[in-house]
Protein backbone atom coordinates (compact mmCIF):
# COMPACT_ATOMS: atom_id res chain seq x y z
CA UNK A 1 0.00 0.00 0.00
CA UNK A 2 2.34 2.68 -1.21
CA UNK A 3 -0.43 4.72 -2.84
CA UNK A 4 -0.24 7.41 -0.16
CA UNK A 5 3.43 8.06 -0.88
CA UNK A 6 2.65 8.10 -4.60
CA UNK A 7 -0.17 10.58 -4.08
CA UNK A 8 2.06 12.76 -1.88
CA UNK A 9 4.57 12.86 -4.70
CA UNK A 10 1.78 13.86 -7.13
CA UNK A 11 0.74 16.68 -4.79
CA UNK A 12 4.34 17.98 -4.62
CA UNK A 13 4.86 17.90 -8.38
CA UNK A 14 1.52 19.47 -9.23
CA UNK A 15 1.85 22.15 -6.57
CA UNK A 16 5.21 23.10 -8.00
CA UNK A 17 3.92 23.11 -11.59
CA UNK A 18 0.79 25.08 -10.74
CA UNK A 19 2.73 27.70 -8.78
CA UNK A 20 3.71 29.47 -12.00
CA UNK A 21 0.02 30.32 -12.51
CA UNK A 22 -0.77 32.54 -9.52
CA UNK A 23 -4.31 32.32 -8.28
CA UNK A 24 -5.04 29.31 -10.47
CA UNK A 25 -7.05 26.42 -9.15
CA UNK A 26 -6.20 22.86 -10.09
CA UNK A 27 -9.37 21.17 -11.32
CA UNK A 28 -8.02 17.94 -12.74
CA UNK A 29 -4.89 15.81 -12.58
CA UNK A 30 -4.44 13.20 -15.31
CA UNK A 31 -2.30 10.14 -14.73
CA UNK A 32 -1.01 7.46 -17.06
CA UNK A 33 -0.67 4.21 -15.16
CA UNK A 34 0.63 1.03 -16.75
CA UNK A 35 -1.14 -2.24 -16.02
CA UNK A 36 2.06 -3.43 -14.28
CA UNK A 37 2.62 -0.30 -12.20
CA UNK A 38 1.37 -2.00 -9.02
CA UNK A 39 -1.01 0.76 -8.03
CA UNK A 40 -4.71 0.39 -7.43
CA UNK A 41 -6.95 3.15 -8.68
CA UNK A 42 -9.40 2.90 -5.77
CA UNK A 43 -6.56 3.33 -3.30
CA UNK A 44 -5.17 6.26 -5.26
CA UNK A 45 -8.57 7.94 -5.24
CA UNK A 46 -9.00 7.32 -1.53
CA UNK A 47 -5.56 8.71 -0.66
CA UNK A 48 -5.99 11.59 -3.09
CA UNK A 49 -8.85 13.08 -1.13
CA UNK A 50 -6.79 13.01 2.06
CA UNK A 51 -3.45 14.13 0.63
CA UNK A 52 -4.87 17.08 -1.31
CA UNK A 53 -6.65 18.65 1.67
CA UNK A 54 -5.38 22.14 2.29
CA UNK A 55 -3.27 22.15 -0.90
CA UNK A 56 -3.73 23.80 -4.31
CA UNK A 57 -5.20 20.47 -5.46
CA UNK A 58 -8.02 20.35 -2.93
CA UNK A 59 -11.31 19.46 -4.60
CA UNK A 60 -9.67 18.46 -7.90
CA UNK A 61 -10.46 15.32 -9.87
CA UNK A 62 -7.94 12.55 -10.33
CA UNK A 63 -8.32 10.87 -13.71
CA UNK A 64 -6.43 7.62 -14.18
CA UNK A 65 -5.80 6.28 -17.65
CA UNK A 66 -4.69 2.64 -17.48
CA UNK A 67 -2.29 1.59 -20.20
CA UNK A 68 -2.24 -2.03 -21.36
CA UNK A 69 0.99 -3.99 -21.43
CA UNK A 70 2.68 -3.78 -24.82
CA UNK A 71 5.34 -6.34 -25.68
CA UNK A 72 7.53 -6.68 -28.72
CA UNK A 73 6.87 -9.96 -30.50
CA UNK A 74 9.97 -11.14 -32.35
CA UNK A 75 8.28 -13.65 -34.72
CA UNK A 76 5.57 -11.10 -35.68
CA UNK A 77 8.14 -8.30 -35.81
CA UNK A 78 5.81 -5.84 -34.13
CA UNK A 79 4.63 -4.43 -30.82
CA UNK A 80 1.50 -6.14 -29.52
CA UNK A 81 -0.87 -5.14 -26.72
CA UNK A 82 -1.68 -7.92 -24.25
CA UNK A 83 -5.27 -8.47 -23.24
CA UNK A 84 -4.35 -8.93 -19.59
CA UNK A 85 -1.40 -9.64 -17.32
CA UNK A 86 -1.86 -13.37 -16.87
CA UNK A 87 0.12 -14.47 -19.88
CA UNK A 88 3.03 -12.78 -21.61
CA UNK A 89 2.47 -14.37 -24.97
CA UNK A 90 1.73 -12.71 -28.25
CA UNK A 91 -2.06 -12.65 -28.73
CA UNK A 92 -1.51 -13.16 -32.47
CA UNK A 93 1.01 -15.99 -32.73
CA UNK A 94 1.05 -17.36 -29.17
CA UNK A 95 4.84 -17.16 -28.80
CA UNK A 96 6.31 -15.93 -25.49
CA UNK A 97 7.31 -12.26 -25.43
CA UNK A 98 10.44 -11.07 -23.62
CA UNK A 99 10.63 -7.41 -24.40
CA UNK A 100 8.30 -5.05 -22.53
CA UNK A 101 7.57 -1.79 -24.34
CA UNK A 102 4.77 -0.37 -22.19
CA UNK A 103 3.07 -1.24 -18.92
CA UNK A 104 5.14 0.14 -16.04
CA UNK A 105 4.32 3.83 -16.56
CA UNK A 106 3.43 5.87 -13.52
CA UNK A 107 3.31 9.45 -14.60
CA UNK A 108 1.42 12.70 -14.46
CA UNK A 109 0.37 13.34 -18.02
CA UNK A 110 -1.20 16.78 -17.58
CA UNK A 111 -3.11 19.02 -15.22
CA UNK A 112 -6.11 21.15 -15.91
CA UNK A 113 -6.19 24.51 -14.14
CA UNK A 114 -8.65 27.35 -13.94
CA UNK A 115 -7.10 30.77 -14.03
CA UNK A 116 -8.74 33.92 -12.78
CA UNK A 117 -8.91 36.28 -15.77
CA UNK A 118 -6.46 39.17 -15.86
CA UNK A 119 -3.77 37.47 -13.78
CA UNK A 120 -0.37 37.27 -15.43
CA UNK A 121 1.51 34.04 -15.30
CA UNK A 122 4.65 34.36 -13.18
CA UNK A 123 8.04 33.52 -14.58
CA UNK A 124 6.77 32.04 -17.84
CA UNK A 125 6.40 33.86 -21.11
CA UNK A 126 3.42 32.84 -23.16
Amino acid sequence: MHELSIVSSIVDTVTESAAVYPGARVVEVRLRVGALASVVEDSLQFCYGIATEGTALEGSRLVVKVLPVVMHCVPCGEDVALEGVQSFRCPKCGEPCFDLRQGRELEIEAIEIEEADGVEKAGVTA
Partner: protein
Amino acid sequence: MTTRIVELRRGILKKNDELAAGLRDRYATAGVLVLNLVSSPGTGKTAFLEWTLIELRKRGARVAALVGDLETDNDARRLAASGAPVRQINTHGICHLDAEMISKHLDGWELGSLDYLFIENVGNLVCPSSYDLGEGIRVVLLSVTEGEDKPLKYPAMFNSADAAVITKMDLAAPCAFDRWEALKNINEIRPGMRIFETSAKTGAGIEEWLGYLEEKRVGRGH
Protein backbone atom coordinates in the same frame (compact mmCIF):
# COMPACT_ATOMS: atom_id res chain seq x y z
CA MET B 1 -12.17 32.08 -15.66
CA THR B 2 -9.91 30.48 -18.23
CA THR B 3 -9.27 26.78 -18.28
CA ARG B 4 -5.86 25.65 -19.32
CA ILE B 5 -4.34 22.20 -19.82
CA VAL B 6 -0.72 22.02 -18.76
CA GLU B 7 1.19 19.04 -20.15
CA LEU B 8 3.56 17.67 -17.53
CA ARG B 9 4.64 14.16 -18.58
CA ARG B 10 6.46 13.71 -15.29
CA GLY B 11 7.30 10.36 -13.77
CA ILE B 12 5.82 10.17 -10.29
CA LEU B 13 8.77 8.14 -9.03
CA LYS B 14 11.29 10.26 -10.92
CA LYS B 15 13.23 11.17 -7.79
CA ASN B 16 13.66 7.50 -6.88
CA ASP B 17 14.54 6.57 -10.46
CA GLU B 18 17.24 9.24 -10.59
CA LEU B 19 18.72 8.16 -7.26
CA ALA B 20 18.63 4.52 -8.42
CA ALA B 21 20.44 5.42 -11.63
CA GLY B 22 23.14 7.08 -9.51
CA LEU B 23 23.43 3.96 -7.36
CA ARG B 24 23.65 1.75 -10.46
CA ASP B 25 26.63 3.83 -11.65
CA ARG B 26 28.26 3.56 -8.22
CA TYR B 27 27.86 -0.22 -8.18
CA ALA B 28 29.27 -0.49 -11.71
CA THR B 29 32.29 1.66 -10.85
CA ALA B 30 32.91 -0.39 -7.71
CA GLY B 31 32.48 -3.64 -9.62
CA VAL B 32 29.98 -5.09 -7.16
CA LEU B 33 27.02 -7.18 -8.29
CA VAL B 34 23.91 -6.05 -6.41
CA LEU B 35 20.89 -8.30 -5.97
CA ASN B 36 17.48 -7.22 -4.71
CA LEU B 37 15.59 -10.10 -3.06
CA VAL B 38 11.82 -9.77 -3.02
CA SER B 39 9.05 -12.08 -1.81
CA SER B 40 6.00 -12.35 0.43
CA PRO B 41 6.58 -12.37 4.18
CA GLY B 42 7.55 -15.86 5.31
CA THR B 43 8.96 -17.18 2.04
CA GLY B 44 12.35 -17.70 3.63
CA LYS B 45 14.36 -14.81 2.20
CA THR B 46 16.47 -14.54 5.33
CA ALA B 47 17.20 -18.26 5.54
CA PHE B 48 18.02 -18.34 1.84
CA LEU B 49 20.29 -15.31 2.15
CA GLU B 50 21.98 -16.61 5.31
CA TRP B 51 22.81 -19.80 3.47
CA THR B 52 23.98 -17.92 0.36
CA LEU B 53 26.26 -15.64 2.41
CA ILE B 54 27.83 -18.59 4.24
CA GLU B 55 28.40 -20.59 1.06
CA LEU B 56 29.83 -17.61 -0.84
CA ARG B 57 32.19 -16.78 2.02
CA LYS B 58 33.38 -20.41 2.11
CA ARG B 59 34.33 -19.96 -1.52
CA GLY B 60 36.26 -16.78 -0.79
CA ALA B 61 33.75 -14.27 -2.15
CA ARG B 62 33.45 -10.86 -0.50
CA VAL B 63 29.83 -10.30 0.42
CA ALA B 64 27.64 -7.89 2.37
CA ALA B 65 23.92 -7.43 2.93
CA LEU B 66 21.33 -4.79 3.66
CA VAL B 67 18.11 -6.08 5.13
CA GLY B 68 14.81 -4.25 5.20
CA ASP B 69 12.05 -4.79 7.74
CA LEU B 70 9.32 -2.63 9.20
CA GLU B 71 10.66 -3.20 12.71
CA THR B 72 13.32 -5.23 14.61
CA ASP B 73 16.90 -6.05 13.75
CA ASN B 74 16.34 -9.79 14.13
CA ASP B 75 17.16 -10.51 10.49
CA ALA B 76 20.36 -8.47 10.54
CA ARG B 77 21.52 -10.34 13.61
CA ARG B 78 20.76 -13.69 11.97
CA LEU B 79 22.61 -12.73 8.80
CA ALA B 80 25.57 -11.25 10.66
CA ALA B 81 26.24 -14.70 12.12
CA SER B 82 27.55 -15.59 8.64
CA GLY B 83 30.47 -13.23 9.30
CA ALA B 84 29.48 -10.87 6.48
CA PRO B 85 28.93 -7.15 7.10
CA VAL B 86 25.19 -6.61 7.48
CA ARG B 87 23.04 -3.56 8.10
CA GLN B 88 19.41 -3.43 9.04
CA ILE B 89 17.08 -0.88 7.48
CA ASN B 90 13.94 -0.30 9.54
CA THR B 91 11.25 1.33 7.45
CA HIS B 92 8.84 1.89 10.38
CA GLY B 93 5.69 1.12 8.48
CA ILE B 94 6.81 1.79 4.91
CA CYS B 95 6.09 -1.26 2.81
CA HIS B 96 9.16 -1.17 0.54
CA LEU B 97 12.78 -0.06 0.36
CA ASP B 98 13.61 2.90 -1.85
CA ALA B 99 16.82 4.16 -3.40
CA GLU B 100 17.28 6.86 -0.77
CA MET B 101 17.20 4.34 2.10
CA ILE B 102 19.80 2.23 0.30
CA SER B 103 22.00 5.23 -0.35
CA LYS B 104 21.91 6.29 3.31
CA HIS B 105 22.73 2.83 4.58
CA LEU B 106 25.72 2.42 2.29
CA ASP B 107 27.52 5.27 4.02
CA GLY B 108 30.98 4.24 5.11
CA TRP B 109 31.00 0.96 3.18
CA GLU B 110 33.76 0.50 0.66
CA LEU B 111 31.80 -0.99 -2.25
CA GLY B 112 34.97 -1.62 -4.23
CA SER B 113 35.98 -4.24 -1.67
CA LEU B 114 32.85 -6.33 -2.33
CA ASP B 115 31.96 -8.92 -4.95
CA TYR B 116 28.29 -9.13 -4.04
CA LEU B 117 25.87 -6.92 -2.16
CA PHE B 118 22.49 -8.46 -1.33
CA ILE B 119 19.49 -6.35 -0.47
CA GLU B 120 16.71 -8.21 1.30
CA ASN B 121 13.60 -6.15 0.65
CA VAL B 122 10.57 -5.83 2.93
CA GLY B 123 8.33 -8.89 2.60
CA ASN B 124 5.76 -7.67 0.09
CA LEU B 125 5.07 -8.73 -3.49
CA VAL B 126 3.36 -5.50 -4.54
CA CYS B 127 5.01 -2.19 -3.64
CA PRO B 128 8.72 -3.10 -3.99
CA SER B 129 8.14 -3.79 -7.69
CA SER B 130 7.83 -0.04 -8.36
CA TYR B 131 11.04 1.00 -6.60
CA ASP B 132 14.28 0.59 -8.46
CA LEU B 133 17.21 0.22 -6.05
CA GLY B 134 19.80 0.31 -8.80
CA GLU B 135 20.22 -3.45 -8.50
CA GLY B 136 21.80 -5.53 -11.23
CA ILE B 137 19.51 -8.48 -10.61
CA ARG B 138 16.08 -8.69 -9.07
CA VAL B 139 15.37 -12.08 -7.56
CA VAL B 140 11.82 -13.06 -6.70
CA LEU B 141 11.40 -15.88 -4.18
CA LEU B 142 8.43 -18.18 -3.82
CA SER B 143 8.10 -21.01 -1.29
CA VAL B 144 6.36 -24.32 -1.87
CA THR B 145 3.96 -23.48 0.96
CA GLU B 146 2.52 -20.47 -0.86
CA GLY B 147 0.68 -21.95 -3.79
CA GLU B 148 1.70 -22.47 -7.38
CA ASP B 149 -0.40 -19.57 -8.66
CA LYS B 150 1.55 -16.84 -6.87
CA PRO B 151 3.11 -15.60 -10.14
CA LEU B 152 -0.37 -15.18 -11.63
CA LYS B 153 -1.52 -13.27 -8.56
CA TYR B 154 1.49 -10.93 -8.55
CA PRO B 155 2.39 -10.56 -12.23
CA ALA B 156 3.92 -7.10 -11.86
CA MET B 157 6.55 -8.39 -9.47
CA PHE B 158 7.25 -11.67 -11.24
CA ASN B 159 7.46 -9.93 -14.59
CA SER B 160 9.94 -7.38 -13.24
CA ALA B 161 12.31 -10.04 -11.87
CA ASP B 162 15.42 -11.46 -13.54
CA ALA B 163 15.50 -14.76 -11.66
CA ALA B 164 13.12 -16.79 -9.53
CA VAL B 165 14.01 -18.94 -6.54
CA ILE B 166 11.64 -21.58 -5.21
CA THR B 167 12.42 -22.11 -1.53
CA LYS B 168 11.63 -24.88 0.98
CA MET B 169 11.75 -27.62 -1.68
CA ASP B 170 12.23 -30.11 1.19
CA LEU B 171 8.57 -29.43 2.04
CA ALA B 172 7.32 -29.95 -1.51
CA ALA B 173 5.88 -33.40 -0.89
CA PRO B 174 4.06 -32.67 2.41
CA CYS B 175 2.61 -29.52 0.81
CA ALA B 176 1.56 -31.42 -2.33
CA PHE B 177 3.43 -28.77 -4.27
CA ASP B 178 2.75 -29.07 -7.99
CA ARG B 179 6.19 -28.27 -9.34
CA TRP B 180 5.22 -28.28 -13.01
CA GLU B 181 2.33 -25.95 -12.40
CA ALA B 182 4.58 -23.49 -10.54
CA LEU B 183 7.24 -23.58 -13.26
CA LYS B 184 4.59 -23.14 -15.94
CA ASN B 185 3.08 -20.13 -14.14
CA ILE B 186 6.44 -18.43 -13.66
CA ASN B 187 7.21 -18.99 -17.30
CA GLU B 188 3.84 -17.64 -18.37
CA ILE B 189 4.49 -14.33 -16.56
CA ARG B 190 8.20 -14.02 -17.31
CA PRO B 191 9.05 -16.30 -20.22
CA GLY B 192 12.55 -17.72 -20.09
CA MET B 193 13.36 -16.52 -16.55
CA ARG B 194 16.02 -18.60 -14.76
CA ILE B 195 14.43 -20.62 -11.96
CA PHE B 196 16.26 -22.21 -9.03
CA GLU B 197 14.65 -24.90 -6.89
CA THR B 198 16.27 -24.74 -3.50
CA SER B 199 16.19 -25.80 0.12
CA ALA B 200 18.28 -23.97 2.69
CA LYS B 201 17.68 -26.97 4.94
CA THR B 202 19.00 -29.74 2.69
CA GLY B 203 21.31 -27.62 0.55
CA ALA B 204 19.45 -28.52 -2.64
CA GLY B 205 20.07 -26.20 -5.55
CA ILE B 206 23.04 -24.35 -4.06
CA GLU B 207 25.56 -25.20 -6.77
CA GLU B 208 23.31 -24.05 -9.56
CA TRP B 209 22.48 -20.83 -7.69
CA LEU B 210 26.11 -20.01 -6.88
CA GLY B 211 27.07 -20.83 -10.45
CA TYR B 212 24.50 -18.32 -11.65
CA LEU B 213 25.84 -15.63 -9.30
CA GLU B 214 29.38 -16.21 -10.49
CA GLU B 215 28.30 -16.17 -14.13
CA LYS B 216 26.48 -12.85 -13.62
CA ARG B 217 29.34 -11.28 -11.71
CA VAL B 218 31.96 -12.29 -14.25
CA GLY B 219 29.61 -11.42 -17.08
CA ARG B 220 29.75 -7.81 -15.94
CA GLY B 221 33.36 -7.64 -17.02
CA HIS B 222 35.44 -7.95 -13.88
